[in-house]
């Protein structure tokens, strides 16, 4: 779909409609959780462990409780009385809410102070004296997985090692044989480090238990309000919280990126405090708590082997991974896929043999495994295949673009069944790469690089041709804690022809209020400006699994389309009644039904809506509304080709991204402006981990990168002027041919940048550098090659 089918007034799909969210945000009238102030509201602050592993010998709260305004200190034993000191993780592991005897990672919650004022709660937290006995710390996952390592999760009866799970896909033996028979094998150890989503708004909540009604309302920063409600009902049913008396409200969210999917202990403690005290309790993390204690992403140690013939035909891929999950497996993955959709690791290439395995390991770090702007481990998979493809190209002495072109799944082979079991719905990989090469001027850049090399200047060109797998997902395979990963839409058309639409997802900046309205406008011809979109309130919205993993358009977007079609179908019967004809005599154009061949004999959708309440055909149920729960038949497979140009300072090792060309294909587009914005933001979140961002720990478990002083989120100065373009290959199974797009750029950008850096240094014998590619790492490589200035 290249051109919009609707006019600018209706503003259906394909229009760059200005966002309906903007008027409140540009006036400072958003409503984020910390903006909520309820009468009598109390404040909570959390005392956190300075140690990565320690026994709690004593918690002395006496000084804290003497502070006027400090009302209570909640610790593990307090919660134990209500059996709320442990909770399940999304991956069905277990996690302490508050500890009874041991802390297992630095910044773990130890106890919480409740006070009448925010500052007094902080004073109270300061005044709590905790006596610790430091215990041995296990930080290195490679040591933790070794036989004989001390067992970390002693709470798990019978546990004799530190493995959270083992998962594999593909045929190990066949792949080993194919690798052994390959003329060339590129082998590379690739580490994708721990990073943090660092959304500009931290996490928090206002828990409000109404003692008179026995009803709990929690305003919280969550990307999945309905799932949270059910989880609260399941884990706190024994203390009287019943699902019909729990209301989760997700207000405006200041960025989520996966970090607002998990249920953190702070939320649970605030809820417990509100239930016990009977007053609203607000808990808002500060930035250091957010970076130090909330779930992390990535942390995959991968040994990657890619076999090929001498002329560059890929033969086999094997990836062996050790995944550092920290203290507990709190990954937000579908139950059947503990390592997420990592088996997309064959990427855009036609590989006949592949095997991948993941061993997830416990360490004394905060829980990891958030799908940070990533459809469940796709980022790690893409980094592995796209990096090793360049290692292979270098080994073969082949241009990396040529090697990719040679191995792409051909456009005519879609739908394509990958050797690791996915059915790629559609794709045209050569078209995207060719377009990116044209835009960037690939041949000229290679010439420029040659000339610069002759002068001793360092310049690199990096390519990434990624395939994503998003939109989880078909209910036969995808669930979280048993709840199937469908999603929903409910549309009500009012008598005057305006409408309200509600969804099971929750925008955190993606612009759903605009794009969902455009989908409904496309189907019904009601102007998008007349359609109000609501999400995030579990008392009013239909049930859904929420927004993450680029799933909103593939699931709730599809549901919007199909719910609207149900409405259109009913409106058609009404139109036939009004025009005194049969439905078969009617044609549709956006906004009206008309008698075939007689365009002025027409009834608008608004007239049909009015009649649905005032003059419906006899026997017809009044009203005009519909709900649809959409269970996708397959995932969608967006793809793209990115080309990055970097310059490297030989004196400092600093990498400067000079150009970044991104050609994306997300099928049919709802709002080109918003898609472009999603790509821009994702690219910046690719630059971050590629060059700057990392959370690491010393051997005692002390965090580095625990504040914005040390965790370097890119600013406007580090981001280049993005050059974006697109190809359009519609999804054949999605109701309007769309695919998810929110995460493509975060997934595709880091390997393009890493490949560009290695490309700049390849003549010095450099074949790999792990991200983040810091000046220090580059300078060390230059120095080793005798090329540092």
């Amino acid at each position, binding site marked *: 779909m290249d051109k919009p089918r609707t006019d600018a007034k209706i503003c259906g799909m394909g229009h760059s409609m*200005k*966002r309906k*969210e*903007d*008027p*409140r*945000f*540009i*006036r*400072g*009238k*958003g409503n*984020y959780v*910390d*903006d909520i*102030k309820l009468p009598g509201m109390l404040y909570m602050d959390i005392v956190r462990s300075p140690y990565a592993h320690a026994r709690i010998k004593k918690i002395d709260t006496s000084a804290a409780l003497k502070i006027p305004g400090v009302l209570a200190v909640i610790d593990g034993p307090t919660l134990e009385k209500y059996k709320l000191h442990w909770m399940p993780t999304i991956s069905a592991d277990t996690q302490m809410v508050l500890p009874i005897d041991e802390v297992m990672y630095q910044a773990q919650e130890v106890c919480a102070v409740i006070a009448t004022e*925010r*500052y007094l709660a902080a004073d109270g937290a300061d005044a709590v004296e905790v006596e610790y006995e430091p215990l041995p710390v296990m930080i290195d996952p490679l040591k933790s997985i070794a036989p004989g390592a001390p067992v970390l999760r002693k709470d798990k009866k019978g546990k004799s090692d530190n493995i959270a799970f083992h998962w594999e896909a593909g045929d190990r033996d066949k792949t080993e044989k194919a690798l052994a028979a390959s003329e060339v094998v590129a082998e590379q150890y690739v580490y994708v480090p721990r990073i943090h*989503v*660092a*959304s*500009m*708004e*931290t996490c928090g909540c206002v828990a409000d238990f109404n003692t008179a009604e026995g009803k709990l309302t929690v305003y919280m920063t969550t990307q999945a309000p309905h799932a949270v409600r059910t989880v609260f009902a399941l884990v706190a049913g024994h203390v009287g919280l019943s699902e019909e008396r729990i209301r989760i409200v997700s207000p*405006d*969210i*200041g*960025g989520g*990126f996966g970090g607002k999917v998990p249920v953190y202990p702070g939320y649970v403690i605030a809820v417990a405090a509100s239930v016990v005290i009977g007053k609203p309790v607000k808990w808002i993390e*500060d*930035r*250091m708590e957010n970076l130090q204690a909330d779930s992390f992403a990535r942390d995959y140690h991968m040994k990657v082997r890619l076999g090929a013939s001498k002329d560059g035909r890929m033969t086999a891929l094997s990836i062996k991974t050790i995944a550092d999950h920290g203290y507990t497996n709190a990954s937000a993955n579908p139950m059947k896929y503990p390592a997420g959709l990592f088996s997309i690791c064959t990427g855009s290439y036609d590989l006949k043999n592949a095997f991948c395995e993941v061993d997830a390991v416990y360490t004394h770090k905060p829980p990891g495994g958030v799908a940070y702007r990533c459809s469940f481990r796709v980022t790690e998979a893409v980094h592995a295949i796209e990096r090793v493809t360049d290692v292979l190209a270098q080994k073969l002495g082949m241009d990396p673009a040529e090697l990719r072109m040679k191995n792409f799944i051909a456009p005519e082979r879609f739908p394509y069944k990958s050797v690791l079991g996915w059915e790629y719905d559609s794709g045209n990989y050569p078209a995207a790469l060719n377009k990116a090469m044209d835009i960037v001027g690939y041949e000229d850049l290679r010439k420029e690089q040659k000339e610069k090399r002759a002068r001793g200047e360092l310049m690199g060109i990096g390519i990434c041709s990624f395939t994503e797998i998003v939109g989880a997902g078909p209910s036969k395979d995808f669930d979280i804690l048993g709840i199937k990963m469908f999603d929903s839409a409910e549309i009500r058309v009012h008598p005057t022809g305006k409408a309200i639409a509600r969804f099971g997802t929750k925008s*955190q*900046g*993606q*612009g759903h209020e605009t794009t969902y309205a455009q989908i409904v406008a496309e189907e019904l011809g009601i102007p998008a400006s007349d359609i109000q979109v609501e999400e995030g309130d579990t008392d009013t919205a239909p049930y859904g699994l929420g927004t993450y993993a680029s799933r909103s358009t593939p699931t709730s977007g599809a549901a919007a389309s199909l719910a609207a079609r149900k409405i259109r179908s009913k409106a058609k019967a009404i139109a036939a009644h009004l025009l005194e004809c049969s439905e078969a005599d009617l044609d549709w154009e956006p906004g009206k039904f008309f008698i075939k061949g007689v365009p002025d004999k027409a009834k608008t959708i608004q007239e049909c809506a009015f009649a649905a309440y005032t003059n419906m055909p006899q026997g017809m149920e009044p009203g005009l509304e519909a709900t649809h729960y959409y269970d996708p038949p397959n995932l969608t497979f967006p793809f793209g080709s990115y080309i990055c140009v970097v310059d490297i300072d030989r004196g400092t090792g600093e990498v400067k991204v000079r150009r970044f060309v991104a050609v994306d294909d997300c099928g049919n587009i709802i709002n080109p*402006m*918003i898609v*472009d*914005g999603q790509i*821009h*933001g*994702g*690219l*910046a*979140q690719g630059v971050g981990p590629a060059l700057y961002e990392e959370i690491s720990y010393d051997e005692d478990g002390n965090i580095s990168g625990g*504040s*914005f*002083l040390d965790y370097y*989120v890119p*600013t*406007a*100065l580090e*981001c280049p*002027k*993005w050059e974006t373009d697109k190809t359009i290959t519609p999804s054949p199974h999605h109701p309007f041919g769309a695919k998810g797009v929110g995460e493509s750029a975060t997934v595709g950008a880091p390997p393009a940048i890493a490949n560009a850096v290695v490309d700049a240094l390849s003549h010095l014998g450099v074949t790999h550098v792990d991200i983040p590619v810091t000046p220090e790492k580059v300078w060390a490589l230059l120095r080793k090659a005798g090329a540092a200035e």
Partner: protein
Amino acid sequence: MAKHKINLTVNGAAHEVEVESRLLLVHLIREELRLTGTHIGCDTSHCGVCTVLLDGQPVKSCTLLAVQADGRKLSTVEGLEQGGKLHAIQEGFTEKHALQCGYCTPGMLMTCSALLEKNARPSEQEIRQAISGNLCRCTGYLNIVKAVQHAAEKLHG
């Protein structure tokens, strides 16, 4: 805790408030004055989502004490729109899709409006430099640059 009476002008209106010595300016703005457009994003002065103007200069209100605003003119995002008419920078932000989640937006708007006061036609590099103390995790910054250029055009033709 000692209390101090301070006088300040907030978006043109005079205010007299009594504050604790330790009260941060951002908490005065958000909690006492209930102007919640100014947000909080970090505790080390790096993110800039709390940016407001003090006597026309962008400052990070999480790093100033409320008492430091005594006798001064404070401008927040709520004061940008005048007489029902949006400031050109607000228009620029929506026109060029320079915001997504909206959380950094008020601070960004204040920084950009101050830039346009002292530099009618900033270059791309000058814009990037000016907003380099304001983090945005959503937009990748390019559309913010375009929004400032759009506003400069609108204001100065």
